[in-house]
């Protein structure tokens, strides 16, 4: 009886293996949408990009599905951010060996934000894509890996990367110019989570979140009041919601501020760990950044 079961199981496992698309293109699997966008821009027509986490999927809250494994195993390369962003999948990446590439490897560690290095030996904030300039530094990693797999097209990749890089450069400049429309005192970003550290650092914003970036984090009334006082004192005009947080927290914040005779708006939704709908502007990295910055600047002016 047991033998039959065993063979049955083995058969199922074998059947479960996918046939990989073999059209001469490089098969890439990425984790977060921002990364997929980058790879698409570098690879262009030469790659098939399959993104595990589509629009609106928060990598912290991501639940794996059965097909993900097949996709990863069957691909030529898996790009992920690293720095523990895709926490649950670390072991998978390690097991994939060379096939899995952390794009954050290409970043200079000194440029990264380190939370409390003395206390915990340093755990980096992984939300690196909010700093456009920093983000563009992942491109060489992508180029190198793609070229390794597809050496003939190395020049194409390098060219694409260059072009995308210049897009990102202009984006960065654009951000800088938009941001300069705000006076330094106005550059305060208040959100529910603490995810915009890199944004703040790169573009001169003071960033305040209601609770830490840990998944189990929570806040107390005093913490809320401290933030309320901060908003009132500094005359912050708008606070921002992130898609994955209960709107109640922000609403409580707003009402608290109101009770102190100050008005703060909900400045709009920011994309924090995920991007917008596919086929829309916000569904691309550039579009997402634009949306965020426009939302922020317009509300704070």
């Amino acid at each position, binding site marked *: 009886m047991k033998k039959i079961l065993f063979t049955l199981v083995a058969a199922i496992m074998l059947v479960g293996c996918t046939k990989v698309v073999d059209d001469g293109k490089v098969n890439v699997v990425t984790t977060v949408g921002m990364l997929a966008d980058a790879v698409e821009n570098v690879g262009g027509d030469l790659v098939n990009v399959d993104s595990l986490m589509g629009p609106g999927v928060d990598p912290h*809250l991501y639940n*794996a*599905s059965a097909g993900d494994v097949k996709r990863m195993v069957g691909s030529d390369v898996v790009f992920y951010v690293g720095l523990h962003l895709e926490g649950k999948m670390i072991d998978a990446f390690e097991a994939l060996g060379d096939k899995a590439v952390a794009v954050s490897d290409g970043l200079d560690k000194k440029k990264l934000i380190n939370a409390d290095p003395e206390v915990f030996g340093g755990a980096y904030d992984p939300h690196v894509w909010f700093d456009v300039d920093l983000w563009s530094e992942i491109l060489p990693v992508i180029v190198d890996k793609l070229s390794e797999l597809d050496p003939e097209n190395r020049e194409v990749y390098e060219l694409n990367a260059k072009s995308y890089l210049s897009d990102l450069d202009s984006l960065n400049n654009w951000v800088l110019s938009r941001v300069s429309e705000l006076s330094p005192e106005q550059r305060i970003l208040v959100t529910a989570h603490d995810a915009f550290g890199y944004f703040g650092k790169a573009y001169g914003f003071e960033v305040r979140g209601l609770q830490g970036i840990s998944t189990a984090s929570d806040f*107390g*009334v005093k913490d809320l009041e401290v933030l309320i006082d901060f908003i009132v004192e500094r005359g912050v005009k708008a606070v921002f919601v992130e898609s994955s947080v209960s709107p109640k927290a922000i609403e*409580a914040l707003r009402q608290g501020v*109101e009770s102190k005779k100050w008005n703060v708006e909900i400045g709009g939704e920011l994309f924090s760990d995920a991007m917008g709908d596919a086929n829309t502007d916000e569904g691309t990295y550039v579009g997402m950044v634009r949306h965020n910055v426009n939302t922020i600047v317009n509300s704070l002016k």
Partner: protein
Amino acid sequence: MEFFTTINSVYVMIGSIALGAMCGMLGVFGVLRKQGLLGDALAHAALPGIAIAFLIMGERILAGLLLGALVSGLLGAFCIQYLVKATKIKMDSAMAAVLSVFFGFGIVLLTFIQRLPSASKAGLDTFLFGQAAALLKIDVILMSSIFLFTLLVVFIFWKELKMFIFDSSFAAVLGFRSRFFEILFMTIYVLAILVSLQAVGVVLTAAMFITPAAAALLWTKRLLSAVVLSVVFGSISSASGAYVSIVAEGMPTGPVIVMAASVIFLFSFMFASRGGIVWKAIERYKYSKKVNLENLLAKLYRDTESGVNKWQRSDISLIMLWRLRSNGYINSGNEITLTKKGLVSGFKVVQKHRLWETYLVERMNFSHDHVHRDAEIMEHLLTDDVVEKINSILGNPKVDPHGKSLKMK
């Protein structure tokens, strides 16, 4: 008040007290029906409803999601009840089963949704659960209303609810509409749970429906007192928790309230009248005190049988001297003598000892060298009535198996 610097602290304080009261009251019924953890179960069971609501609406509209959660939660509660009624599955297993199956289904739906191209689906599972520090006016109103409504229902139907909780089979025999109360209670309970979930999240909900009630049940077994006490405990925990989170930074309101409630539980556990360890320890201590005193009295009496009537102060410890004196068993002076009362009390202990030995030997066929140990214990436990009975059963014996007298000199 200096203390309430923002409107938030007011809402949180009032809201959490209302929550504590509401949960405390319903919690007693829940715990007695072994459904204390229904809060946790429903929080998990609501997931598929949320996912389906999202799929139908295509967007994240709060009201719709809440409705989905409500339907799914009620369905889950119904399934639990059905399982318990229809099979021999127990309440806790039913809850665990429904919890995990529903939740599993919810996850299945979520992973399916993940693949869809729309962007507003992030964090559907956590989106619905609020945080205690973010209580708003609407929450306060909602929770107070439910509390008052429940209070009303409980007040009106007190007798019936009591019967329903404690003896539903008996009630059914009387042709009593226990079905009706079943549904009534479950509906209110589930509603309260869901309101609490969306206001303060899973863990606080689970805790507040159980811990204050459990603590109250440690103090009393009577339903009315338990409910009142539970409401008090619930409110105090919430108030203290809210207070701490209002004055100190880095003290998330929900967890702190749970801490407060747990402290009350701990305190109750240690001191409360029935199961409390402290109480038991006190009882043990009182018992050993009694034993020591009686042993001393017995010894003194036996001494008088050998003709000794006086004892030196140094023969007896200070504490025992004090105890003997305060009970009126001795006359103190430079030398100690027994009072009449002391003599009689001493005799009683000795009599019990010897009588028991007699009983064991004559009626139970023990040999007389096996009975001493037993009698050492029983001499402190036998009451006067029992001694009389034994005396008459044995036909008023004059001596025990060792030849010692059973009558007082």
